[in-house]
């Protein structure tokens, strides 16, 4: 499946205007909406950040990281520990969490990114599980009892933090493919060995992108910790975050700037609708949805939308390629 590496033009003026309008609407939203909807929107933003961040290493680079929640946990615990024991202000603790995520990613990345395919996936998952058990055993992290962060006075702050993180993540998604690093990882994604022959040193670039992805998971973790006040190992070192980010990215279109965000908006909204209809069966619907999605739209909605033919034709073509 070798496709030409698209040359990305800078977003046009109309796109820019739309972006400003969207941002403006988002900034004004809390003034008109009830707390429930603000909370819902924050949740959507959160998955938007996670999906966009995951897309950097999973979509653009083609290295699906199944342990990304490891960094969410690192960010959450760093923020928690600094706020509780060092009485650090939230902003500083959050930043520290992001930085520690980057540092950890750089360190473990040089080891893990030597692996490929399924092995990379399971090794990253293993890394997350190790961190989960470590957090459950250390005094510093409160062990299995977890950490209780100080309560925040209002909720709206979290909305804006998440929005800021989202803006940053989407910007990263736009910037990456247009940068040198972006070209390198695109080449790596298509054919790593060929890229290497052409003089691209894969490990360095993969690790950089991995660290960027880790940063976003880390800051989401920090915001999450302060928002939910209570964190413990199974809550933050949870593969569900990663899976949802991956599925949302896939749904919206991996390797695109807005695809992951679109995926996050649609799937999180769908999840909420299903929960309202039938609490008990909503997981069944979600599972069926993932299956259908993966079979009929494996390159995400973006690809279907972009293709010239009708939706049915595009799907049929994809199936022809992927089945025996």
């Amino acid at each position, binding site marked *: *499946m070798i496709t030409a590496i698209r040359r990305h033009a800078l977003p046009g003026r109309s796109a820019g205007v739309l972006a400003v309008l969207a941002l403006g609407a988002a900034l004004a939203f809390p003034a008109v909406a009830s707390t429930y909807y603000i909370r819902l929107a924050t949740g959507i933003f959160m998955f938007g950040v996670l999906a966009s961040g995951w897309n950097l290493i*999973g979509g653009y680079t083609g290295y*699906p990281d199944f342990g990304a929640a490891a960094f969410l946990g690192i960010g959450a615990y760093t923020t928690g520990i600094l706020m509780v024991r060092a009485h650090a202000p939230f902003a500083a603790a959050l930043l520290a969490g992001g930085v520690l995520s980057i540092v950890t990613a750089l360190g473990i990345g040089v*080891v*893990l990114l*030597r*692996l*490929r*395919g*399924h*092995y990379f*996936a*399971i*090794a990253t*998952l*293993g*890394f997350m*599980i*190790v961190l*989960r*058990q*470590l957090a*459950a*055993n250390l005094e510093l992290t409160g062990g*299995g009892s977890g950490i209780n962060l100080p309560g925040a006075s209002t909720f709206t702050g979290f909305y804006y933090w998440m929005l800021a993180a989202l803006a940053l993540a989407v910007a990263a998604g736009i910037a990456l493919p247009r940068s040198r690093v972006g070209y390198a990882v695109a080449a790596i994604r298509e*054919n790593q*060995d060929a890229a290497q022959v052409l003089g691209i040193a894969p490990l360095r670039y993969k690790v950089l992108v991995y660290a960027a992805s880790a940063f976003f998971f880390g800051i989401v973790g920090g915001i999450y910790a302060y928002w939910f006040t209570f964190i413990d190992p199974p809550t933050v070192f949870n593969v569900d975050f990663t*899976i949802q980010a*991956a*599925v949302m990215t*896939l749904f919206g279109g991996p390797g695109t700037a807005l695809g992951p965000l679109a995926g996050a908006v649609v799937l999180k909204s769908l999840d909420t609708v299903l929960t309202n209809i039938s609490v*008990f*069966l909503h*997981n*069944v619907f*979600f*599972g*069926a*949805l*993932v*299956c259908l*999605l*993966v*079979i009929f739209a*494996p390159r995400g909605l973006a690809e279907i939308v972009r293709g010239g033919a009708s939706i049915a034709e595009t799907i049929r073509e994809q*199936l022809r*390629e*992927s*089945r*025996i």
Partner: protein
Amino acid sequence: MNAAAQIALQNAVNGLLVGGTYATVAVGFSLVWGVLNVVNLAHGALVMLGAYVTYWLFTLYHVDPLLALPAAGAALFALGYPLQRVVINQVIRASFLITFLLTFGLDLLITNLALAAWTADIRSVTTPYSGGSIALGPVTVPIVRLAALLTAIFVAALLHLMMTRTRLGSAIRATASDQEAARLMGIPIAHIYALTFAIAAATAGIAGGLISLSFPVFPAMGPGYTLVAFVTCVLGGLGSVPGAFLGGLILGLVQMYAASWLGPNYDNIVAFTVLILVLLVRPAGLLGRGYRFRG
């Protein structure tokens, strides 16, 4: 024999016994991965279904689980064939992320349908001999686990014989090593794939039946066993039944000693650190033949 040695020996026995169960879980997973290049994240869910088959046969009709194992195997075989032929087959040549996510979606579906059908109540099978044990000198060997290990060896041996001595086995191995050549030879690929998956599902069902004897049974039990299968395959090597077996035993021992020396709360840390080390040092696993990966 002093106390420390006795504990060490008992841990070895426990580790091997648990490892046998892990091996049965892993053997089918390894088959699917090695032949179809599909990492079946729903494997644990199939194990769970097998466990429920023996549970219901035991509870409703008083069939001993060991005798019900063939039924579990047959039921899962019947489920596995169409599952592969109709569903998974659609994306079998797509990237591994796709099949990963598809099997993840299937796992979610199966688990939640089971939840809707049988509720989250935790079940267990308690046969008259359930708590029995044999004292072999300084160690106590639980009967049920011993039976599970013996069955595991038997099933693995059967599978290995099938793979190496029968025509079906040759066809499967041919398809695994070179799909195009096999197709040119007239081997019906889609059918072979489905058959392989069905056989793997059958072993998963049997593993589930064995598990129901000594472990709790509930709809969400799957993912833990999928992970076990994955680690076992990495340790022991892909596409090799003896490899999966060896990997299972090693994993059982490693976890048991980690739990004993460091505490039960360290078992995963050790297991996964070992996993990552093995992946880096000898990615093919102990008995594997090198991995295939998509370009």
